[in-house]
């Protein structure tokens, strides 16, 4: 199936119009020495039916979350996605459009982005947001670059409470701009504030924290605000789960300068790591430093309200090597998903989803605490995720639970932490029965 709709006869007509006989003549500019003299080594094309068979055969060798009871989180959350989300983003006028270069025929995309930007501001407590970045990792990377540009300083203090993968991406991005990273260890699951304080100095561009952090813990934001604002030149970058912000005090209230994060939790399919969306919000005074596209409202010839991509003199197609970022294609459809999801949940719905997830996580954690040999490492406040240590090796525990169809959580030994354990996440999708299953499985191990 090749999706070409010219017939042989039409092809002849076209060749004639061009003034040639063979289609190959169109390729005559390619020097013979480099022309490929054999067919590509790619399997023969397939009909739809065959294609479905081939892909389903592969799919059937996967074990999907629909067949398992998953307690995996770590930045990617299995929330319920209302049916209307996929129906609406399947409107072809949305998903088969390009970047809205011709605003007058792209008002749907543009208004949706404006609404997206507005809702991100509402959640984060910030003054403006861009149209999306590639994912939570690249958003963290862009945030440290932006902090470097604003402060003209090079030192980035990075809490190890920030997702290890985001830290890795931030270091990749930053290292090419001469940024130096200082990582702050955790005490249990919270950033070591004494160590943080020691690192703050004249060279510091920014402090980067996650809220709730990688282990689900909520950092002592009031104290951190005090520490960072004492050296007023230092920017506070907060990496936040936007769904949690439906419940938690917004980072804007803790004097954050740049808020970024992974927007997957807002209605995006779990999809093995992507496509998701990075979001970024900041204060008005930093708008010229912001990477990525921004949509603004304006009016047309007749004074009617409409939307355009604006403040483009920051961007690569105009500023080229002097742009604030190289980003061009972003994650627009994923941002549309987030917009529809947030519209559907609304003011109350988001509190309910976040609240149920939190309540269920706490219920499970409290019950686990009562099992001999098991410990919850998180001190104080945490959201819907916690770190668990067991009286047996984590590997054994995972295997034992998997035998019962449960993904117990994430073994953190793959990351750079001193602490060992299992990172467990509970969303509103987990039922009491599933939580009890988890507990009985642990009891057996014990």
């Amino acid at each position, binding site marked *: 199936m*090749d999706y070409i709709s*010219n017939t042989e006869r039409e*092809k002849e007509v*076209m060749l004639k119009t061009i003034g040639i006989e063979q*289609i190959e003549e*169109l390729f*005559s*500019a*390619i020097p013979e020495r*480099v022309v*490929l003299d054999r067919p590509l080594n*790619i*399997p023969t*094309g397939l009909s739809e039916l065959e294609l479905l068979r081939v*892909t389903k055969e*592969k799919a059937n*060798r*996967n074990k999907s*979350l629909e067949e398992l009871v998953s307690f995996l989180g770590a930045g*990617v959350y299995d929330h*319920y996605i*209302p049916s209307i989300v996929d129906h609406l983003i399947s*409107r072809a006028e949305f*998903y*088969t*459009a390009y970047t809205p*270069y*011709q605003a007058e*025929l792209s*008002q749907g*995309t543009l208004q949706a982005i404006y609404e997206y930007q507005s809702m991100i501001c509402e959640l984060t407590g910030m003054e403006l947001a861009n149209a999306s970045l*590639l994912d939570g*990792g690249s958003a963290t990377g862009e945030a440290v670059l932006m902090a470097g540009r604003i402060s003209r300083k090079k030192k980035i203090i990075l809490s190890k409470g920030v997702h290890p993968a*985001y830290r890795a*991406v931030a*270091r990749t991005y930053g290292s090419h*701009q001469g940024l130096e990273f200082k990582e702050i260890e955790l005490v249990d699951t919270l950033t070591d504030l004494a160590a943080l304080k020691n690192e703050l100095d004249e060279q510091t561009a920014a402090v980067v924290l996650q809220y709730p952090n990688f282990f689900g813990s909520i950092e002592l934001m009031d104290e951190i605000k005090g520490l960072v604002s004492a050296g007023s030149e230092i920017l506070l970058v907060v990496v936040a789960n936007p769904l949690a912000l439906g419940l938690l005090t917004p980072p804007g209230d803790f004097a954050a300068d740049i808020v970024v994060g992974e927007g997957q939790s807002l209605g995006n399919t*779990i*999809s*093995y*790591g992507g496509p998701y969306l990075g979001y970024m919000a900041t204060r008005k005074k930093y708008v010229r430093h912001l990477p990525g596209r921004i949509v603004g409202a*304006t009016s047309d010839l007749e004074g009617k309200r409409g939307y*355009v991509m604006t403040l483009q*003199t920051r961007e*690569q*197609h105009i500023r080229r090597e002097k*742009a604030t970022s*190289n980003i061009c*294609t972003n994650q*627009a*459809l*994923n941002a549309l998903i987030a*917009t529809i999801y947030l*519209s*559907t949940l*609304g003011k109350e*719905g988001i509190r*309910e989803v976040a*609240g149920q997830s939190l309540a269920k996580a706490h*219920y499970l954690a409290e019950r686990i605490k009562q099992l001999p040999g098991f410990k919850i490492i998180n001190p104080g406040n945490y959201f819907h995720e916690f770190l668990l240590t067991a009286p047996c090796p984590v590997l054994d525990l995972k295997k034992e639970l998997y035998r019962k169809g449960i993904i117990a959580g994430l073994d953190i030994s793959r990351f750079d932490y001193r602490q060992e354990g299992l990172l467990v996440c509970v969303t509103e999708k987990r039922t009491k029965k599933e939580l009890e299953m988890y507990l009985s499985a642990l009891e057996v191990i014990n």
Partner: protein
Amino acid sequence: MVKPLIRDYGSPGRKGYSLPELDIPAGELSDYLDQSLIREKPAGLPEVSEVDVVRHFTGLSQMNYGVDSGIYPLGSCTMKYNPKINEDIARLEKLSQLHPYQEEEQVQGSLELLYELKEYLAEISGMDQVSLQPASGSHGELTGLMIIKKYFAERGEQRTKVIVPDSAHGTNPASAAMAGFQVVEIESNQKGMIDLAALRAAVDQEVAALMLTNPNTLGIFEKDILEIAEIVHQAGGLLYYDGANMNAIMGYVRPGDMNFDVLHFNLHKTFSTPHGGGGPGAGPVGVKEFLSPYLPVPVLSKDQARYYWDYNRPLSLGKVHAFYGNYGVMLKAYAYIRALGASGLKEATEHAVLNANYMKARLKDQFELPYQENSLHEFVLSGIRQKEKGVSTLNIAKRLLDYQQYAPTIYFPLVVKEALMIEPTETENIKTLDKFVETMKNISREIEEKPQLVKNAPHHTPVRKLDDVAAARNPDLRW
């Protein structure tokens, strides 16, 4: 009619969502969290019903235009038809409901699919190794340039400059700068191609790479490519291929055989995954073997019949994406490549080039054709004749919208004044092309007869011409 904002449909207490009752004993929020951490006021989200949401976004979609609406001849964007079956495949539960931290044993089917995709991309491009991690074209550029930087760093060479032709996409210089390189721009020659003398003058011990699109943004094949490669390689530099125009060459010529060392693909262009109104795309990177140690981690590898993510890559540049890239997009590109197969891919290229040349032949009398060289999948016209009559390329683009046809890329490449860059793609047929050509000719006549009509376009779109200047002067970026 002005479309209200979603929150304007709201009424206090209206809901569009329901959850099962909480089935565990639960207390107040303050039982779990310190009061200072609990939001005082709920976030200002809409309070609307499900029907409100459906009608609002359906309404918005009706103010949009996609490939499914009609021709979308945006040059360099390869807006071909997006097969529906690919959407179904990407939504198969057993392919999509996978967590990135699931054990490899649970996702062998998907890993095999991704591994095969890497092999196909390597074969199509003539490269040795592919990383699927970059999430967009410019992300791929950045990754490719970081690979180059890492390579020279490991060799102890101080190479700080990247050469970019003046016809390059804006992302090229922006990515080079982001990877920490200094950008050296060279002028194209009169034929719209790399000026070999200018290139020779620009290469030196400090040049790390030349970034090149071939065919270039004028749609013209750089026929001196082997000589270009030799000039760069002899000076110790590497050659970077911007894959934006790969739709012009599939099955005919491979960047690897043209002696490129690194490239990125745009799965959302060449391989037909939908662009989503601005994304998601995917920008995998291909390299020659000697650069493979520097690819981002993890690298999808195979041991006997088992697939796994290899993190043990000491020379890797690190990570550019939190996980493995835009997996959902990769599924669609995989389905596309399997549906077309080797001969289908080549035919897609042939018809893309045929369609572009047909349109060029039919339009070149009405509009200025600044470069006479043979072109492949796209061509660039200039609106200077029309501009002399007081009508700009922007006006022409806006007038096209009145005829319910999307406009070409305009004012790019920068080397052409009043540029109209047209790429029809292979999935359009002669009827659609003729209609577009006739529309362009109509507009040309309108410019002669009633220029005001064109200057004030568009007239029939959901909004009239929008004021960009006011938008930038008084930014209104949120409700």
